[in-house]
């Protein structure tokens, strides 16, 4: 680390253009001199800075931004060369350096994702009680209108709830009831049966059975 620091402070003071460009990887003069552009002296140092910047950035960094990291004006191709070297250095690692639309950025290799998911096991999301009850009502009492659902639940049913179930492909409107306001009639879809792994609605627990369950709780059935 102190070595690092030393290298850095050296870089701070030495950033002038060296006449003979060095191949940093091999640390000897490059055979073919580059096309006369100014070569940043401490390419290794600059590469390290690019690396730190890219690893800490939350967004892709454009070449224009990356250029700010040099102490002297830099040409795009110099930066790009270094970025390609970096990308190569990371080729055996768990992350990769990619060029994307708005610049360059690191990302975890997609193959790593199953492992990384173990660290953030997203708890499977759950539907609210309101959603589940609405679904149950539609499943058991279809076709029903929103009014029917509200009557059974005893509370208003938000459009959001129905929307959630519709977007999921579990309910659909199959018409309207011929009463004032022409309320829409909701029914469950085949998709729901598929997702519940049922062949038909009759495979849902029968209401009789449910009633029994409830009575075990010491209450009288309605």
């Amino acid at each position: 680390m102190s070595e690092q620091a030393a290298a850095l402070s050296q870089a701070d003071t030495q950033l002038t253009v060296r006449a003979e460009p060095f191949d940093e990887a091999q640390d000897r003069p490059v055979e073919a001199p580059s096309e006369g552009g100014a070569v940043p002296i401490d390419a290794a140092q600059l590469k390290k800075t690019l690396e730190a910047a890219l690893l800490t950035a939350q967004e892709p960094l454009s070449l224009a931004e990356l250029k700010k990291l040099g102490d002297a004006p830099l040409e795009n191709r110099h930066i790009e060369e270094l970025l390609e070297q970096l990308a190569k250095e990371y080729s055996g690692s768990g992350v990769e350096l990619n060029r994307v639309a708005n610049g360059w950025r690191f990302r975890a290799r997609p193959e790593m994702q199953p492992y990384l998911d173990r660290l953030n096991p997203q708890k499977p999301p759950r539907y609210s009680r309101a959603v589940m009850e609405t679904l149950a009502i539609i499943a058991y009492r279809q076709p029903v209108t929103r009014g029917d659902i509200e009557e059974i639940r005893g509370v208003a049913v938000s459009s959001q709830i129905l929307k959630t179930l519709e977007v999921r492909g579990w309910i659909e409107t199959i018409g309207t009831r011929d009463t004032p306001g022409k309320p829409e009639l909701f029914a469950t879809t085949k998709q729901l049966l598929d997702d519940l792994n049922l062949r038909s609605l009759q495979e849902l627990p029968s209401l009789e059975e449910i009633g029994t369950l409830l009575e075990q709780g010491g209450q009288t059935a309605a």
Partner: protein
Amino acid sequence: MTQTDLQITPLARIHGEPVLEMPHDLYIPPDALEVVLETFQGPLDLLLYLIRRHNLDVLDIPMAQLTQQYMDYIEIMQRNRLELAAEYLLMAAVLIEIKSRMLLPRPPKASEEGVEDPRAELMRRLLEYEQMKLAAQKLNELPQAGRDFELVQVLIEHTVEQRLPNVAVEDLRQAWLALLARAKQNAHHKVRREELSVREQMTRLLRQLRHGEFEVFENLFDVSGGIPQLVVTFIAILELAKETLVEISQSETLGNIYVRASRSLIAS
């Protein structure tokens, strides 16, 4: 009143210029004083400043001198009608009290037992505060994440689409159970028990009739389903008729019976 202590931190900076000591001239711009006042973290901080600035010995504070200086300071503040925190006035009282106690002759008996120096508590507090003040400086010098170094955070691209809740049959059962339980509490919300198969057939029939055209009655039945299925379908049709969801018509006696969805049912 030596003024050789070079290590004093500036009292304040006014227009970028460090103010190292209280101005001696008669006129002190009130805003300058306000800045000065703000640089002190309280009476202990001010006392420490005075002690250091005048090279006083913390372990043997000349109370008369310190108190005098402190009071001068307070007076300037008050003369300029700057609002002084109550703590500063309280400290003034403490200092005066210590000073007066030190003027009292010590009771001969008590001196043998080593009566506590009236300044002891003040000294203890000054030392403790100063230690924390220095500790705060040290803490502030430690490299801080975000300020002095950045944390690495590489993107994970969550290619998986938004996760949807899983629902099991059991969840539906539980939901229905909850409804039933509630319905029982409110007797007027009657939840009828009904053959599910009838409701299922009702939905199936409505779907079949969606096109809005008349359908021949017989075509609504799936003969392969067996007799129970036929019965259930029949009940479903009656139920639909009862709920005015379908119209049933027969143009002549013993002629074909036609069923179609109520006009309003036909989804646009």
